[in-house]
């Protein structure tokens, strides 16, 4: 089966010991939850999930060349 490629962007302390941005191959049909767990992040740690700049649920499946951005719960104003 062909793999798909997803750009993953990490923010705030998620970057520590990981990366800022990386392109990874995944099996087709992979969802946000699987990628988050695969990065060693707990689901409870993740505050904001965006796919291509729009808020996404953990169940959302990724497509070839999607960008997944993960933020801890942070804020400002």
């Amino acid at each position, binding site marked *: 089966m062909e793999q798909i490629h997803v750009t993953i962007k990490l923010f*705030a302390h998620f970057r520590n010991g990981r990366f800022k941005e990386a392109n990874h191959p995944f099996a087709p049909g992979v969802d946000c939850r699987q990628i988050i767990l695969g990065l060693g992040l707990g689901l409870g740690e993740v505050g904001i999930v965006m796919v291509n700049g729009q808020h996404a649920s953990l169940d959302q499946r990724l497509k070839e060349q999607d960008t997944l951005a993960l933020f801890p719960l942070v804020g400002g104003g």
Partner: protein
Amino acid sequence: MDKILRVNLNDLTTRVEEVPSEWAGLGGRALTSTIVAKEVPPTCHALGPNNKLVFAPGLLSGTASSNSGRLSAGAKSPLTGGIKESNVGGTAAQMFARLRIHALIIEGMPKGDGWYSLRINKEGVSIQEETGLLGLGNFAVIDALQSLLGKKTGVIVIGPVGEMRLSSANISVKDPSGKIRSHGRGGLGAVMGSKRIKFISIDDEGAPGIQIADPEKFKAASRVFTKALMDHPVSGQGLPTYGTNVLVNILHEAGGLPTRNFTYGQFDGHEQICGETMHDTIVARGGKPRHGCHAGCVIQCSQVYNDKDGQYLTSGFEYETIWGLGANCLIKELDDIAQADSVMDDLGIDSIETAVAFGVAMEAGLLPWGDGKEVVRILRDEIGKGTALGRVIGSGAGAVGRTYGVTRVPVVKNQAIPAYDPRSVKGIGITYCTSPMGADHTAGYTIATNILNVGGQVDPLKKDGQIELSRNLQIATAAIDSTGMCIFIAFPALDIPECLPALIDMINARFGASLTGDDVVNLGKTILKTERAFNLAAGLTAADDRLPEFFKSDPVAPHQAVWDFTNEEIDAFWDF
């Protein structure tokens, strides 16, 4: 006994008054807006003798409660022509509260050309002639007053921009480290300048202090409240570590980071100015990533930012300033932005209004996009010295647009739109339109729910639910602004069920009152309606509750979003 201090500059007299019973239960914004609405003729000139400048600590200021040390300032705004309240940290609110000053009202205007200062202590308030510190920047004034009156003195001060009465002038308040925080928006510094008050010094020696009606109950509620602040991931960890500037990358990713004077929603230099980079830079240069704007702040979103040589450069370096000069003016060097921030603090000019004014100035071709050095030069040599160009930029984004024939001028009620694009974060657009303050993100911070998943989730790109979201947040914010609380307590308040009841319990324990949640909501509604009624009487209309035309006609990348609310939909905001 609590008291009202009244300064009449027409005849240079001062009075200590009893607190009228209808003002006794009010603090902060509720009190400043009530006093302005009652005593200021709405159609008066904001810089004339009939405007009044009012300061009031919050209901809980001066108590041991976390994050309660905010001071409200209110007047008719020379920028918007409507009512204004702006609140700030620093040491003054707590000193006012310990001195049992419910509010300070400054009215009238001195005859002649002389300048004055006010001195507040346990006896009341007195007026002095002032000559020595005129023309000086805020930092020099604070240094001089600290050597004259001692390190502990409280200071409320205007810089040269306030002396010039420019509509972006702010009022600064000394913070616990001897630096400043500012009543930023709406040109309140120009009102203080019009009254020719350079500074107010506060001495709380011998102050009677706060009396708490039910100390045990207060302590218990305060514990619950502080725990909620510490437990919530935003106030407990996010804000202390990265400050507000963590938002650069979030808004960039969401396509809501206004870039190149609100032309795009993303900035290719975002990594250079983002909170993550700033945090690493601060740590590497021996600055402080966390720092509170007043004693008792447990969140500490502020920071101390050092230059390359490890020397203090600025503090209170906020997302809005960094966005405004960064993405909005395409400046990629964080050090240049920090330098500009420090100069703006010293001159006493609102960093949001001014950053947006620079974006419009760049659009007009007055200086190149991204030229941070030129921004610093214009701040120092044009605005600081009061040249014609400096006065135009110092009068705000709207003034620059009108002077140079620019049509892309992001203002509502002539006040600059801050750091969130209303086309791609629609809830905040409703707040910009409807807030009686003019475009102000803090008035109803829908970013929490539109972007940060705090208090639920409302899709930022759709119209559904935005009016209600903005209305509920504006009502809650008006109430919170009256307690002396920093608005960042809203993050835990939206998510942690014990947080708001604990806040209300503290107010009840402090005053021996029995307010319910509904009372607090009603207070918020009353404040908003009072402010709106003032604006309507001042001549503003529903047509002022609108975004500039270009937000409808120009889609913003990457989502190609446009502002698509009808006038009727916006006006329905006021159906409460």
